[in-house]
């Protein structure tokens, strides 16, 4: 079976534990090479984070477990890349013109 190389998630999480702790825990998982977490919305007690993970062989269940253990919920899986290399989505005529 093909290996998952990149996952982009939309996550709702409490302010504590901070994204510093969460990113450190995610980067400790087997098969993870890089983690990026950016906050795009802040509420009184919670915040919305975009979590990007890249690696040689990502295990989604492990990722979800770490996020859940830190009080977060995955709202949506926004992008997944699998296979021998990482590709970005191809440009089409339907894409908004910059």
């Amino acid at each position, binding site marked *: 079976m093909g290996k998952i190389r990149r996952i982009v998630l939309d996550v709702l999480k409490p302010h*504590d534990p901070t994204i510093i*702790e969460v990113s450190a825990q995610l980067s400790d998982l087997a098969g993870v090479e890089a983690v990026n977490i950016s906050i795009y919305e802040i509420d009184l007690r919670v915040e919305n984070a975009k979590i990007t993970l890249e690696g040689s062989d990502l295990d989604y269940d492990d990722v979800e477990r770490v996020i859940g253990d830190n009080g*977060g919920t995955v709202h949506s899986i926004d992008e997944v890349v699998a296979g021998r290399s990482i590709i970005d989505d191809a440009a089409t005529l339907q894409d908004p013109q910059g």
Partner: protein
Amino acid sequence: MGPFQRELQRLKEYDEVADIGEIARRYFAMNSFDGILTIVGVLAGNYLAGVRTPSVVITTGMATSVSMAVSGLWGAYLTESAERQRSLDELENHTLTDLSQTRIGRASRAAVFVVSAVDGLAPLLASFLVLTPFFVSHLLGGILYSYYASLVVAMLALFGMGAFLGRISKQNVFVAGLKMVVAGVMALLLSYLIEHTVGISETGG
């Protein structure tokens, strides 16, 4: 990493989530202060009532300390667990998930445990420290010296406590220590006044 270090590491992680250290420190200072002042009151009462048997002072002092410990433990457990539960419930309303089995839930339970233990042990240890001279009154050459030594220990402990708080708040350590000692002296003066009033009313009656 040994099991003890692992537990310490876990406690450190929980501290980051649940701010255990700050609350425990507050409870520690508040209840040690309570413990010392209560025992100063007990000792002043014993001294003014003419108690000259170390075992009586130790028994009354220890009974008071143990009561304070139980009260601290129980009170802190009930209030802290209620507050923590409320805070977790509020957070759950925002995340719309059950957080009890997450790191936040575990940190919250650990906080209740640590804070209750600190709240119970602080007055117990502080008052035992002040009572120490009565355990060795035969070495000090009489119970009167135990009373004086206890007073010195109590004032030093109060000063130490004040200095500790002064260091946390980055104030003058000496002034902060003295403020605590003033409270101790006040407790003694009030005990003396009560004894004096009771003494007059007994003579009058």
